[in-house]
């Protein structure tokens, strides 16, 4: 369903990668590996539609993602390095807004349940400012636990800053998603085994 063909990426004057192709079907997991600066984040951003590749195209269900615009946005969840939380809003408010952006209508109970999956329900009323890095990452991932979460997940270092408990929860969340037929592309320096129907590894900077 997700098809990337002949992607090449340039940052400044450096060419990070060229001729890269990737195909992902339901239940599939793609791991992006590579040293720092090899273009893992850039590739993820290209797949999300944030960055235009220097060459090549990305297609979702056969259509170019550039043509799909927010239709594609509805079917994907991109979570980058930054936790994307506003310091001035509470955890619950941040999650509610993220749900709205994703086009998910969620009740208070559903928001709380999603936070509980990531172990942050007790801190729902706290302003995001007081959270630790790991806690912020849990909240930013909580939107994946909402009902109606999208089919394609693009996660950049989802396990970063998480403790063992957090890693376990995220692993369970992603495995359930893949078992349901969802798709996942992730970058991770940590070797966290995630069970999936089909696993492919893309190594950059080789």
């Amino acid at each position: 369903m997700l098809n990337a063909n002949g992607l090449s990426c340039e940052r400044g004057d450096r060419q990070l990668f060229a001729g890269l192709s990737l195909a992902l079907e339901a239940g599939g997991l793609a791991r992006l590996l590579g040293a720092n600066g090899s273009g893992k984040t850039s590739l993820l951003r290209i797949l999300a539609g944030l960055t235009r590749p220097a060459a090549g195209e990305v297609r979702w269900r056969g259509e170019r993602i550039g043509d799909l615009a927010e239709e594609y946005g509805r079917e994907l969840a991109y979570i980058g390095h930054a936790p994307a939380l506003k310091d001035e809003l509470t955890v619950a408010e941040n999650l509610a807004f993220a749900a709205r952006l994703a086009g998910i209508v969620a009740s208070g109970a559903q928001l709380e349940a999603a936070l509980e999956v990531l172990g942050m329900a007790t801190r729902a009323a706290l302003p995001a400012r007081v959270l630790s890095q790991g806690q912020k990452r849990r909240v930013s991932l909580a939107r994946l636990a909402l009902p109606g979460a999208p089919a394609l997940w693009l996660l950049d270092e989802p396990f970063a800053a998480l403790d063992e408990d957090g890693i376990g929860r995220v692993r369970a969340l992603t495995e359930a998603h893949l078992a349901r037929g969802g798709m996942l592309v992730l970058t991770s320096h940590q070797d966290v085994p995630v069970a999936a129907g089909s696993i492919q590894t893309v190594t950059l900077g080789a």
Partner: protein
Amino acid sequence: MTAAFAAVLRRDLLVALRRKGDALNVLIFFVIVASLFPLGTGAEPGQLRTMAAGVIWVGALLAALLSLPRLFAADLADGTLEQMLVSAQPLPAVVAAKVAAHWLSTGLPLALIAPVLGLQYGLPGDALRVLLWAVLLGTPVLSLIGAAGAALTLGVRGAAVLTGLLVLPLCVPALVFGAGALTASLSGLAPGPHLSLLGALLAVSLPLGLWAACAALRVALD
């Protein structure tokens, strides 16, 4: 689309409310600038009345300019801007909501304070009314053009000054018609045509400013 607009508007207003200092500083800056001019040029009543239009408008422009970095920079820094670009919502709706929130927290207070400053400058009642309408019509134009300018310079070194360099020339028509309306009213002429032209400017800058801001945001986050 309206749901997205409402959600982003509500969020931005909530954030602005919890950071009252930012909006307040802009207002205080406006008041200080407008108060500095009589000190600098001498407080002769006739002179003040002729200066009023220009001073109040330039003060409003500069104050609005000060508030522009807040529009996108904070969201860029914490990653929420990126989320808006990959979201399920059309970007123009999101940007329109941010501009609306910006105007409500910056432009509208400026517009409400302007007549008070007009009193300081000895403007009569009719002129104060015209001033209020002119600034109410003109500040959204500033917010729209300012949004385009802020998006173009997002994350660039020296963005604050560069934004001013880009935005101020494009705001000159608003300045000319806005101040012109006030001057017309003071001379006993009809301010209507100026205000209509200001309205037309608003109608033109709405699609143009939104298009430019959306395009520039995509370029900035590429």
